[in-house]
């Protein structure tokens, strides 16, 4: 029996994995035309959809024009990872050390199992048996390839072929250069194409030293891949090489403080493991699992170096929110897992030598975290400038420590928003107000946005004061295409006799006018 080379590996690829998971999650049968869409662009589509001309990168509308019966689903990356888990488990049953490139693509070294199962055919049989037993995959395609090196194995899996040992270079030789980066976003591929290098073989024939000099480390790495000389060691799910820590609770626990107390040990290990490698965690994912299978996953980003106490605080906050929120689990918590998502070298977070800005920032962050523990996670907020037409929409408050990212881009033009200066105080919820004309009747705005009688008196409670100046009415006709969230009102600016300015909105039409104060120019 021929002994396989050290980095020969078996790769398993599930085509259109985002589609498969979205389809399974939505309970749609296989064979239906499905497209998965992020930010209005198709990121993946099923085979049936592809036959109708749907492609990656199309807009949603374009895709629907190609295929009217197309089912459009949002992307769910958490589900992608979750559903892929049984496949990874099937691979792990054959050999430890599974390397997951991303959900839908995983590999294992094939040398050990080949000897155990008596040849690669034996491994393939075992693997097919293991994968066939996964019920959740019902109807999903799954391709297997074997080759030398990670890149060649991935390409083999994409074509569902088994490459003889030592023939991987020949296999890669005729592949187009684009396979190095299927997303098509890499400037390197574009450059190579324009230089007339169209196959991996042509690229691999260039002298390595010249490639490094001309294209830098990224180019050199791609060059090694193209030549089938990818010498990346198999990293992956070996527990010591990973910084993920897991806490199993037996029996299940349904009290936050008990979980937090038990989590102290793993939190400490999480922090010290990273520190021993000269790393600090900038963002980590905390996964909690209940005994009935419910899961709460949340990413926590942190401005400074995470200490054990910081990690425990976040464990407490997340569980608090989960156990008291609307999606509370039906059983106790049996597992906690801490996964580092983004790490930075510790040096980047060291304090300035003379206690400069780094120190103040960390001190302030700690003080805010302390207030958060005193008053609860949702009590300390940080404002985020958000996109929108209403002043109220343009300010969003997120709990301190959560990622302050806007939901809608504030840089978009947002036609119809009020020009600066912005009102300084927002009323949430808006307070009902009285806006009366000179005859003490509520000011009416017609269907066409006209104001037959101008406002003369204004008040937030029962007593009204005279209006000295006003501007408007400016109609707001938002989301008219959606019957649930459509809004048709008019906005006015009112200055009362004391010089206070208000932003008020009122209803249009023939009914009794309703006025409310949205914001105050205090």
């Amino acid at each position, binding site marked *: 029996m021929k002994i396989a080379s050290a980095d020969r590996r078996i790769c398993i690829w599930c085509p259109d994995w985002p589609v498969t998971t979205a389809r399974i999650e939505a309970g749609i049968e296989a064979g239906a035309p499905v497209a998965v869409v992020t930010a209005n662009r198709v990121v993946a589509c099923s085979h049936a959809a592809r036959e109708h001309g749907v492609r990656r990168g199309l807009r949603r509308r374009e895709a629907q024009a190609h295929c009217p019966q197309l089912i459009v689903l949002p992307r769910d990356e958490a589900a992608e990872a979750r559903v892929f888990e049984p496949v990874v488990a099937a691979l792990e049953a054959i050999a430890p050390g599974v390397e997951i490139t991303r959900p839908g693509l995983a590999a294992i070294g094939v040398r050990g199992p080949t000897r155990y199962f008596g040849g690669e055919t034996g491994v393939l049989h075992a693997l097919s048996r293991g994968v066939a037993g996964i019920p959740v995959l019902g109807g999903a395609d799954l391709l297997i390839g074997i080759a030398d090196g990670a890149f060649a194995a991935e390409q083999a899996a994409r074509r569902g072929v088994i490459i003889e040992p030592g023939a991987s270079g020949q296999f890669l030789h005729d592949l187009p250069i684009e396979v190095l980066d299927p997303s098509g976003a890499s400037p390197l591929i574009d450059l190579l194409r324009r230089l007339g290098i169209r196959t991996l073989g042509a690229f691999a024939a260039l002298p390595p030293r010249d490639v490094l000099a001309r294209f830098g480390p990224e180019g050199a790495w791609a060059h090694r891949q193209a030549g089938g000389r990818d010498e990346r060691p198999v990293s992956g799910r070996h527990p010591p090489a990973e910084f993920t820590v897991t806490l199993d609770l037996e029996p299940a626990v349904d009290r936050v403080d008990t979980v937090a107390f038990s989590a102290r040990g793993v939190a400490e290990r999480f922090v010290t493991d990273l520190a021993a490698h000269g790393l600090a965690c900038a963002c980590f994912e905390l996964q909690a699992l209940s005994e009935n299978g419910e899961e709460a996953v949340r990413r926590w980003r942190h401005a400074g170096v995470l200490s054990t106490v910081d990690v425990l605080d976040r464990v407490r906050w997340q569980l608090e929110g989960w156990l008291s929120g609307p999606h509370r689990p039906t059983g106790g918590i049996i597992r906690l897992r801490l996964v580092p998502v983004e790490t930075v070298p510790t040096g980047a977070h060291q304090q300035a030598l003379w206690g400069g800005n780094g120190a103040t920032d960390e001190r*302030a962050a700690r003080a805010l975290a302390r207030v958060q523990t005193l008053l609860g996670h949702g009590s300390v907020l940080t404002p985020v400038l958000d996109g929108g037409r209403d002043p109220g929409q343009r300010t969003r408050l997120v709990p301190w420590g959560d990622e302050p990212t806007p939901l809608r881009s504030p840089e978009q033009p947002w036609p119809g928003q009020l020009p600066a200066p912005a009102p300084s105080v927002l009323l949430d919820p808006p307070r009902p107000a009285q806006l009366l004309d000179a005859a003490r009747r509520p000011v009416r705005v017609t269907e066409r946005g006209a104001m037959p009688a101008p406002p003369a008196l204004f008040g937030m409670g029962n007593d009204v004061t005279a209006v000295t100046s*006003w501007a408007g009415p400016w109609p707001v006709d938002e989301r008219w295409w959606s019957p649930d969230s459509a809004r048709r009102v008019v906005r006015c600016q009112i200055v009362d006799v004391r010089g206070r300015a208000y932003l008020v909105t009122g209803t249009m039409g023939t009914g009794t006018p309703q006025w409310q104060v949205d914001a105050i120019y205090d």
Partner: protein
Amino acid sequence: MLDVAIRKADGSTAVDWQRVGLRATPPLPVVPALSPLLPGGLRRGSTVSVSGSVSLLLALLGAASAGGAWCALVGFPRISAEAAREYGVDLARLALIPSPGEGWTTAVGALLDAVDIVAARPPRGRGPAPGDVRRLAARARSKDAVLVPFLAEAAWPGADVRLHARDGVWTGIGVGTGRLRARQVEVVAEGRGQAARSHTASLWLPADAGGIEPATPLADVIDLAG
């Protein structure tokens, strides 16, 4: 403080004990429009009360926040992020504690430990207890922070400087025409020590397109006929 100085033979001051007592940490900057009211900026460890306008408070925080200081607002209703940014406040270093409830004093005290400027609005209905006022002022002094109590009308006892915005006049808006563009406000600063003499400044708050600007008073009307 003792009014003592060690003088050299020629009469020049060698060691001025009044200056020795002063802190080494530089004061926090304020925008040029406010510098006539707060000469030298926001002195660390002091208490500066603000009343009459939330915009004035945001303008007070603006320059310091843009320069890297951390700010916290305790007990305020929803503050507009947009307005805060117009006054130069860096939102990444601004924390809001809208409803601290019973823990108002504790929260303000904890924040004074590490946050450079803590603006605090006492809970509605009851003013802060005199003991709390003293304790918070002492905390701010020892931690080099600036406590900014925000009050509707009642004065904060023991404030070093009190800034009060009087009702202003809006421009740009007519009767059914135009829009709110700018407001001319008189801000009065009074206090203890150096600030005992009250100063008044006329300001655009907000200025056209946001922010704060000094308002030059209109020229007197000259009667050419006379």
